[in-house]
């Protein structure tokens, strides 16, 4: 039955979503070459849950975030929000649903209109959606600023007069202006310095607690996700390769890619050395057809074999609550190749 990861009382369900983008270049006989940014992804986000979505650049995580709130249209598949098919709705009924889902971008500088004062950036969406206007809207805007750790004196400022951390707070306040239930947070702290990033992470945790929000938290940095997410989905080349409760994923990754990703992260402890993934021979241009398992060329799982090239591993429940798209997920995946093995000789220059 459970061929799709379920969640108890899901707020958002992504159902076999795919998104392809045409690649620039000449039209081939068989049509234009395409890049499959998101490839048959199914996920469910439970009400009140924080689902972390991690992956490296080009893994499709941002595209998936945009699909989840229907800012772009999928090539195939559906998004369900609180039981409504997001793609069956039009006009006013879609707008009513949109109010309940918002997105916060990585770069608040670009997300905010540079010619709009902070106050206007907050009151405008309220007016558009008919939630409040005039002094009532201004009052709500002031309250929102306070909630995100700014004060009402910031209302008259322009985005460029704020620091990066303050801008990100305004971005959050604007997303909250419509009283949403679901927030897609796309790399919310990756442009910020660590001391400020930690402030924003605390703010996100507090907002979620107070308002009972549901988050889809997208980040390339696994450590950022660890403390906030209840569950984490790992993406690789458009596919979800692992999905697990946060705690389990970091303790015992089941997919070899997750294991490699975890091992590559520098830890502020001189006793721990990051371990790199092996370098791959030409992984192929974007749009290049993947072997059945997209990770196969870089995989160092001892059981790797022909099956990995011939048969696409489905995301399956390996243990209760733990999903992995690997034929050999039952056997532990080593973090990286044996580092004691001699390096490939690189020949010292004179």
């Amino acid at each position, binding site marked *: 039955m459970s061929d799709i990861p379920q969640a108890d009382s899901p707020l958002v369900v992504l159902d076999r979503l795919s998104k392809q983008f045409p690649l620039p270049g000449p039209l081939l006989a068989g049509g234009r070459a395409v890049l499959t940014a998101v490839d048959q992804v199914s996920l469910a986000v439970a009400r009140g849950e924080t689902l972390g979505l991690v992956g*490296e*650049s080009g893994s499709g995580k941002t595209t998936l975030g945009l699909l989840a709130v229907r800012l772009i249209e999928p090539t195939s598949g559906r998004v369900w929000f609180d039981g409504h098919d997001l793609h069956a709705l039009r006009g006013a009924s879609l707008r009513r649903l949109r109010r309940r889902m918002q997105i916060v971008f990585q770069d608040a500088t670009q997300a905010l209109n540079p010619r709009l004062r902070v106050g206007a950036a907050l009151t405008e969406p309220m007016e558009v959606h008919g939630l409040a206007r005039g002094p009532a809207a201004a009052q709500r805007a002031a309250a929102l600023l306070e909630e995100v750790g700014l004060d009402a004196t910031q209302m008259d400022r322009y985005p460029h007069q704020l*620091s990066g*951390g*303050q801008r990100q707070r305004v971005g959050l306040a604007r997303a909250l202006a419509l009283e949403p239930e679901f927030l897609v947070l796309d790399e919310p702290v990756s442009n910020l*310095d*660590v*001391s*400020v*990033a*930690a*402030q924003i*992470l*605390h703010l996100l*945790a507090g907002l979620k607690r107070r308002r009972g929000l549901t988050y889809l938290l997208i980040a*390339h*940095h*696994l*450590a*950022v996700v*660890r*403390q*906030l997410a209840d569950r984490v989905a790992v993406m690789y080349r458009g596919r979800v390769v692992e999905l697990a409760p*946060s*705690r389990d994923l*970091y303790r015992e990754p089941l997919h070899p890619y997750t294991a*490699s*990703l*975890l*091992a*590559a*992260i*520098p*830890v*502020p*402890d*001189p006793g*721990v*050395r*990051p*371990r*790199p*993934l092996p*370098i791959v*021979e030409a992984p192929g241009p974007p749009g290049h057809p993947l072997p059945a398992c997209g990770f196969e060329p870089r995989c160092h799982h001892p059981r790797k074999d022909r099956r990995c090239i011939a048969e696409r591993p489905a995301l399956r429940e390996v243990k209760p609550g733990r999903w992995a798209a690997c034929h050999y997920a039952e056997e532990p995946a080593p973090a990286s190749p044996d580092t004691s093995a001699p*390096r*490939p000789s*690189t*020949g*010292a*220059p*004179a």
Partner: protein
Amino acid sequence: MVGPENPVSPLLAVSRLSVAYRSAGGLARAVENVSFELERGELLALVGESGCGKTTLALSLLRLLPEPVALTDPESRIVFEGADLTRLDPRSLRRVRGGGMALVFQEAGSSLNPVLTIGSQLVETVRAHQPMARRRARDRAVELLTAVGLDRPEQRLEQYPHQLSGGMQQRAAIALALAGDPKLLIADEPTTALDVTVQAQILDLLSDLRHRLQLAVLLITHDLGIAAGLADRVAVMYAGRLVETAPTQQLFARASHPYTAALLQAVPRMDQDAVLPKPIPGQPPVATAWPPACRFHPRCPYAWARCLEEEPPLLAVGPQHQARCWLVDEPERPGPAGINRCA
């Protein structure tokens, strides 16, 4: 605080380096009174958040800053292999650039020329440092690409930068930096633009190269994790100042400046259970208006009257370990756990 001339002089001795910019907001004192030394073959990590002056410091070492805009204090000294670069004529300076010290930037894509092949850039650079026949320079280019771990180097020579991935571009940029056989490599956030798995490869390469080539490295990074994994010694910068410097083990075991200690707690950790990283209150200051006296005092949980009146010098915490904090002097006050409380 430069001691008497060492019997064996370090590769690089920077003393009282100050750099300011004329900017719309007034004079920005990006780097103030920074002194440090770097031994041959040593890897020093310079750690700090954006705006703390670490990149200005790196660029000023090679005197690459635009001179009428960036003002280097006349007291500043940058002694590299015995020569003071602040007084060198342009010709000799050119020889040091790339030949003595070389730079690798964050964006490899922007340090490579997009309209020239990797091969022609390498050959040109090799020959600029050492006159030789094109064919020999080409052999040397292949050697360099092999040294930085690029596969099929002969083919790479014919490729343009855009044909390489980000990680491969950074390798090519490192090859270019090594073309003049430098003694010191300054790497300014060399992996910030890369994915973690690729970052780990490049860090591995840097550590490998420095051992094989006896290269000293000044690694500029905002990531304490990177410093922990690679550096012999770490220097922490805050608001244009060096605030703490120590051998790596020592720094992570006994962070003594409240800023270093706070920074360590602000890093999201992979290896710890679900505890949110601890933020540092307030905002990092800006170079046009550094706080008076101790520059960290507005954000410091331990600050008292003295910190608002007088800026502390770098005080000795232990051998080779210094912190710019009055707490070093006053062990009975509360402070970060690392600071010596029982010496």
